[in-house]
């Protein structure tokens, strides 16, 4: 019977999968383009690794925000506080286990980092759940109120950090074996940055697998595109959204730990400072797009590093320039998310 019905199908040609490669090509193009300006290939590798590490950290901090926006059209200006909170949560682990940081054992040092990350993600996940319930939920549907209220949440939470841990900056040293650099011939790569790249890649691949290979991931992607239809299929999108919000907060906490060890100082405002980059990145990537967020993070970080080396004065505004150029090219960002 199917064969009989076949002629009734419109005789379209087979559509091809359209993958948008152009934005992806930006990264290697950028690398090749800057190589002659940087001059020495070994310096270029060092800059590139540093840029990648930076990009991965930004990605960790930004990915949750972009998903939360995509799924529920909610913009959380208080996201930065989860970065700070994650960073401060390391103190819970570093306090009692300071010996592990001093020990000259890579295993023990990495275990310490892992514990810090776990503690940070647990704390920020729980606070994220409360934040969603108390701050965000009453203002669904109004961007204006969301921006205001989440900003208010940020103020209160930053002050709470001050009240709990004190207002002065707290130094946190890197664990012993993560200090220093690998030297391969002329190429110098700071160890911690290599670790940051590795963790960033693991999270990115994990997220890709989750989003593309699991039912939850399918639901999230579907929900970003058309939340109403997801509900009409019988799924409770609220529950999904809360989980994504909590996961996004926990990822920000993870990013906060990585960021804190990178700066080796804790301040309550550190999250808000880096939020500027986070916003630039999710705008460049296309609000709601995880892949775009990844490409955007690496792009922004690499540009900052190359420009910082070639023409330091320009580095201050290089991010804004990248964003302006991308928006002129694609007003919705590199990977615009189709919506309804």
């Amino acid at each position, binding site marked *: *019977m199917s064969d009989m019905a076949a002629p*009734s*199908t419109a005789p379209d040609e087979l*559509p091809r999968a359209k993958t948008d490669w152009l934005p992806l090509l930006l990264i290697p193009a950028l690398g090749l383009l800057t190589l002659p300006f940087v001059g020495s290939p070994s310096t270029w590798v060092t800059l590139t690794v540093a840029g990648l590490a930076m990009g991965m950290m930004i990605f960790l901090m930004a990915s949750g925000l972009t998903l939360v926006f995509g799924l529920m059209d909610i913009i959380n200006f208080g996201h930065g506080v989860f970065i700070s909170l994650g960073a401060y949560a390391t103190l819970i682990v570093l306090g009692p286990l300071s010996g592990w940081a001093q020990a000259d054992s890579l295993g023990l040092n990495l275990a310490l980092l892992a514990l810090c990350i776990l503690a940070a993600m647990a704390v920020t996940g729980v606070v994220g759940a409360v934040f969603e319930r108390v701050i965000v939920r009453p203002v669904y549907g109004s961007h204006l109120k969301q921006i205001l209220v989440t900003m208010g949440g940020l103020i209160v939470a930053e002050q709470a950090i001050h009240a709990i841990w004190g207002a002065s900056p707290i130094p946190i040293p890197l664990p012993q074996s993560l200090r220093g650099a690998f030297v391969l011939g002329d190429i110098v790569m700071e160890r911690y940055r290599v670790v940051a790249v590795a963790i960033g890649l693991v999270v990115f691949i994990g997220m890709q697998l989750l989003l593309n290979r699991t*039912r939850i991931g399918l639901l999230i992607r579907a929900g970003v595109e058309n939340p109403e*239809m997801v509900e*009409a*299929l*019988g799924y409770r999108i609220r529950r999904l959204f809360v989980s994504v919000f909590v996961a996004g907060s926990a990822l920000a906490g993870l990013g906060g730990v990585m960021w804190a060890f990178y700066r080796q100082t804790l301040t309550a405002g550190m999250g808000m400072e880096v939020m500027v980059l986070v916003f630039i990145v999710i705008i460049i990537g296309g609000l709601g797009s995880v892949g775009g967020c990844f490409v955007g993070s690496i792009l922004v970080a690499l540009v900052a590093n190359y420009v910082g080396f070639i023409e330091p004065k320009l580095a201050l505004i290089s991010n804004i320039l990248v964003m302006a150029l991308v928006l002129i090219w694609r007003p919705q960002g590199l990977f615009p998310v189709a919506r309804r």
Partner: protein
Amino acid sequence: MTEPLLHLRDVHTHIGPYHILHGVDLAIPQGELTVLLGRNGAGKTTTLRTIMGLWQASSGQIRFDGRDITAASTPDIARSGIAYVPEAMGIFTDLTVRENIVLAARSGPVDKARLDWMLGLFPALKRFWNLPAGNLSGGQKQMLAIARAISEPRRLLLIDEPTKGLAPVMVRSMIEAFKALKAAGETILLVEQNFHAASALGDNVAVMDDGRIVHSGRMSELVADKTLQQRLLGLSLDAHQ
């Protein structure tokens, strides 16, 4: 007379400041195809969306399968066995055809027999199985949308203008597919502007105007009564032949 599967009684719906449905009364009998006709803006889509809980009825009652679903949430309504195909189809363009169907089959993997049946109805889907649904043509998207609705057993299908904007050849194959669905015993509420398609498929017909049902009865009676057609729809069947 058994109780209808779906029963709307004096349903009013407001959207923002606008009063759209002014007391809709509608009964959908089990195992039959009911066509909802009416000009643009008569409230057909709003009726479907109100049944689905996407817009909340401000008064009146909606009973489904003996249960009051007037205030139920959209997911709960869907879980009670109603599938909805909106006019815009609601395809997830970023997901593949397969992933769209996997999501729609909420209770688990689609069993082999059902899958074969579905793909038999819409063979085009088989060819594009692992491609992003955004690449499909309009007609293919419509097929996917209906396939999604029947990806697991449902009690009732709500389908909004499935032939809209389709080429005549696609309209014909869509009509064939609906005939097959009817033969399989599905209960369907179909919004349709195309009277030719509507009259070919409908067991029952309800005509809406200005947020109310102004006529309901057997489709065969409406097809036979040209004056009634003229009065209700402002058109005659001849014009379409």
